């Protein structure tokens, strides 16, 4: 064996240039650290990238709308100076009805449900605002002697208490409830229930009747509240443009970014992280290694069980993170004609989730390793806001499709086409003629997402967002607060509290934990 090349030395190495990795690296560089970011792919961004999926057609490969990233962070990192523009903000949501009608969520609703919606929306936003800081901060640990943990717990208690007796009781009641029951209590319109319920189950391993599905809804609202952002927004040039801006900000702060540099393993010396080795054999030394990869990849593949305790490995193995969400990209010769959608809403979010029962039935299949026969879909046509993503006059349709389980019985290889056809047929029902205008089509199942973006299980959130994988138990006890059992190794990805979505919070918090730890050691 050849001697490894002399290792280049950094203060911190970040594995993975996803949005969280970039945010983390920038923060560390701003604090004066010499930081190296290693990205396996040819471009930065992780799953938040813009890719050409058909000649001349580009699309956000993962999440297609930005609504969780904190406005403060965007300002602080001067992302607009680094090139971030929006092609649309405050995008509206429209529910599509099977018969061809639509329901504009929010404005323009009528009757009892409109009144109920206003009250519901206000109250849920209030809850979101109360929980926002919990999401923005590092989740406290229980039973430690540290004041930071006690203070964080007290502050959480105080925030909930400050809601007032009535709201506090309601929050404590609905926190563990299912969204089906909650929406039944408030609304009578099936399509409104379906549209609101979809937000609770998108990207998660839940059906509307799964207890805990209100939590994911509150999560989304709290995230939006913490972000204080422009509602649903579409970055000009797709989600990749955001990460390009983040990368530019990182470089400006002094971060070195290497792409095409897949990490093979994390190096350990004296029971501390000491650097990383690339698949090429090249090594980099650093006293601090921060992984933007998911917890399973980080611990089981990059680090390895031999540096970890058995019980901990058992918990990591039990971490649930098998994705159920697929992404469908269509290159279209012409704009799709969604029946009944007003012109000012076609650039927004269109939902196919006509009722809670419909979503639940779609979920039933996923429980048994089948794809949904009648999937639920969140659609955007980003070219309505940003013609630059496709040749002039032509369009891109980007859809999040559920449920498409990672562990499909029989495997995806033989069934990808069938599911893709089924999704197109579903779209055809709501936008007649769309099938004929398709020039190119790409379906990213969780298996593809795993392969392309190196996320074990192909899960958006790296690990299911469920009550038992939330807050102080996320991703697993022993690896919370971005620390790991191995000194010098940190986590900064979506597997950490608060979870996935293009938010950047985990990355920022990881950086502050690294810096805090460094101070503690003097």
């Amino acid at each position, binding site marked *: 064996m050849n001697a490894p090349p002399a290792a280049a030395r950094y203060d911190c190495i970040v594995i993975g240039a996803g949005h969280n990795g970039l945010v983390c690296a920038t923060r560390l560089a701003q604090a004066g650290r010499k930081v190296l970011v290693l990205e396996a792919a040819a471009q930065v961004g992780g799953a938040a990238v813009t890719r050409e999926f058909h000649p001349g057609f580009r699309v956000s490969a993962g999440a297609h709308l930005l609504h969780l990233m904190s406005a403060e962070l965007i300002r602080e990192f001067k992302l607009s100076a680094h090139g971030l523009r929006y092609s649309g903000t405050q995008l509206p949501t429209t529910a599509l009805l099977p018969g061809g009608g639509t329901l504009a969520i929010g404005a323009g609703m009528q009757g009892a449900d409109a009144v109920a919606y206003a009250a519901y929306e206000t109250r849920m936003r209030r809850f979101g605002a109360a929980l926002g800081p919990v999401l923005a901060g590092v989740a406290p640990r229980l039973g430690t002697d540290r004041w930071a943990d006690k203070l964080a717990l007290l502050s959480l208690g105080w925030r909930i208490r400050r809601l007032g007796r009535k709201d506090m009781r309601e929050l404590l009641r609905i926190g563990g409830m299912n969204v089906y029951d909650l929406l039944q209590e408030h609304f009578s319109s099936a399509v409104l229930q379906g549209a609101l319920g979809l937000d609770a189950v998108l990207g998660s391993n839940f059906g509307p009747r799964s207890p805990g599905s209100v939590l994911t809804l509150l999560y989304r609202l709290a995230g939006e509240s913490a972000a204080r952002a422009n509602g649903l927004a579409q970055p000009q040039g797709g989600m990749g443009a955001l990460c390009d801006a983040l990368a530019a900000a990182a470089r400006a702060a002094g971060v070195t970014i290497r792409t095409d540099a897949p990490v093979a393993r994390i190096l350990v010396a004296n029971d501390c992280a000491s650097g990383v080795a690339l698949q090429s054999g090249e090594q980099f030394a650093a006293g601090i290694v921060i992984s933007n990869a998911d917890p399973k990849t980080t611990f089981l593949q990059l680090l390895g069980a031999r540096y970890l305790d*058995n019980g901990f490995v058992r918990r990591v193995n039990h971490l649930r993170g098998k994705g159920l969400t697929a992404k469908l990209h269509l290159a279209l010769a012409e704009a799709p004609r969604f029946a009944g959608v007003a012109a000012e809403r076609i650039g927004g979010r269109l939902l196919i989730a006509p009722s809670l029962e419909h979503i639940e039935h779609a979920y039933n299949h996923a429980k048994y390793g089948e794809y949904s026969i009648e999937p639920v879909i969140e659609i955007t046509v980003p070219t309505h806001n940003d013609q630059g993503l496709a040749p002039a006059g032509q369009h891109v349709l980007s859809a999040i499709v559920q449920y498409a389980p990672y562990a499909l019985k029989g495997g995806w290889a033989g069934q990808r086409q069938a599911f893709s056809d089924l999704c197109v047929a579903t779209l055809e029902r709501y936008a007649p003629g769309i099938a004929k205008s398709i020039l190119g089509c790409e379906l990213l199942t969780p298996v593809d997402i795993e392969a392309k973006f190196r996320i074990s299980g192909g899960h958006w959130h790296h690990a299911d967002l469920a009550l038992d994988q939330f807050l102080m138990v996320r991703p697993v006890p022993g690896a919370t607060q971005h620390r790991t059992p191995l000194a010098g190794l940190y986590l900064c990805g979506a597997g950490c509290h608060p979870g996935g979505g293009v938010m950047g919070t985990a990355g920022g918090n990881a950086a502050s934990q690294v810096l805090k730890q460094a101070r503690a050691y003097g």
Partner: protein
Amino acid sequence: MDKPSAMPVDFRHPLQRTPFHERARALSQVDSFVPWSGYSTVDVFTTVEQEYFAVRNAATLYDLTPMVKYRIVGREAVPYLNRLITRDVTKLKVNRVAYCVWCNDAGHLVDDGTLFRSGESEYLLCTAERQIDWLLSSADGFEVEVAEITEQVAALALQGPTSCSVLKALGLAGIENLKPFEIGRFTFAGAPLSVSRTGFTGDLGYELWITPDSALTLWDALMTAGRSWGIRPIGSQALNMVRIEAGFILPNVDFVSAEHTIRTGRDRSPLEMGLGWLVDFDKGHFTGRRALLEEQRRGVARMLVGLDIAGNKPARDSLLYAAPTAKREIGSVTSAMWSPTCKRNIALAMVEAPHFKTGTRLWVDIYLNRELVWERRMCQALVVDRPFFAPERRRATPAADY
């Protein structure tokens, strides 16, 4: 995963029989059997006293078959074991045996056992409790195979001062040169026979490992060869006496596996059990290392110690106090006996800091049943080093001939 076996469980006989059962049944005079790890084994053959003195005076046979045995083999057997147990496995040479313990993440004892290195990357692990759940989950990420082979191996312990002579009479050439914790390979009646100089008695002794179909032949040959060396079978009660004298600990008596405790604060670390010498912090990572380092830094809260107690009444289940009138307990006795060999009233006890230092005086609350009238005695006791009994012959090589 295993394919379901078609043979239903024989629910009328919950306890299995060892390959030696037939002989044990025949020699058992008081029909005293106890369950051990799913097997029916002899508690007492004749009287406990006779059996006890045979261990310290002559030679004894004890059926070890119910010991749970695991075969560990594979390219990464060494790194696997080194991450499992607290000792440095790389130091264990082929055909050597090591006593070892393993811990959970919190550095608390899961179990203890003996590890036999039978080949370059092949090991046999013997444990008192079943461990496949822990051993298999520890194997995640290692190229290693772990399988329970309890039923494929019959095992006998031949222990006592004349045990080497018995084996010589059996025809095992050169057995006297076998060093403590060494394994010798022999052929007996056409079958491979492994003999290790190990045991649970603290005396000169051997453990014999053979396939079940040769078990009875071996038993008979040993009984015949040992007749003039005073050989006799013993049950678990006599073994328990000699193991206390030797200072050995027993799961579910002196500690409860951290995999089984229900209440908080009942787990025990190897440092607390006085087994710090088994923990090698310098060998690299093992499960529980970080927690044990932290415990070592903080200092242990309690420790298992030997007690030398005034009087001759065994201090079974007794509570301990710092002063005869103290209200607060500072620990309790886990194993106790009057040692006929040492002529001392001895016990193993878990004692809270700072009372566990050797030479500390403390008080033992002993209840005596005197013709059905219970009396209470506060007896003074001294914290002493273990073992209580460690004769030269245990280690001498070549082993003494009689």
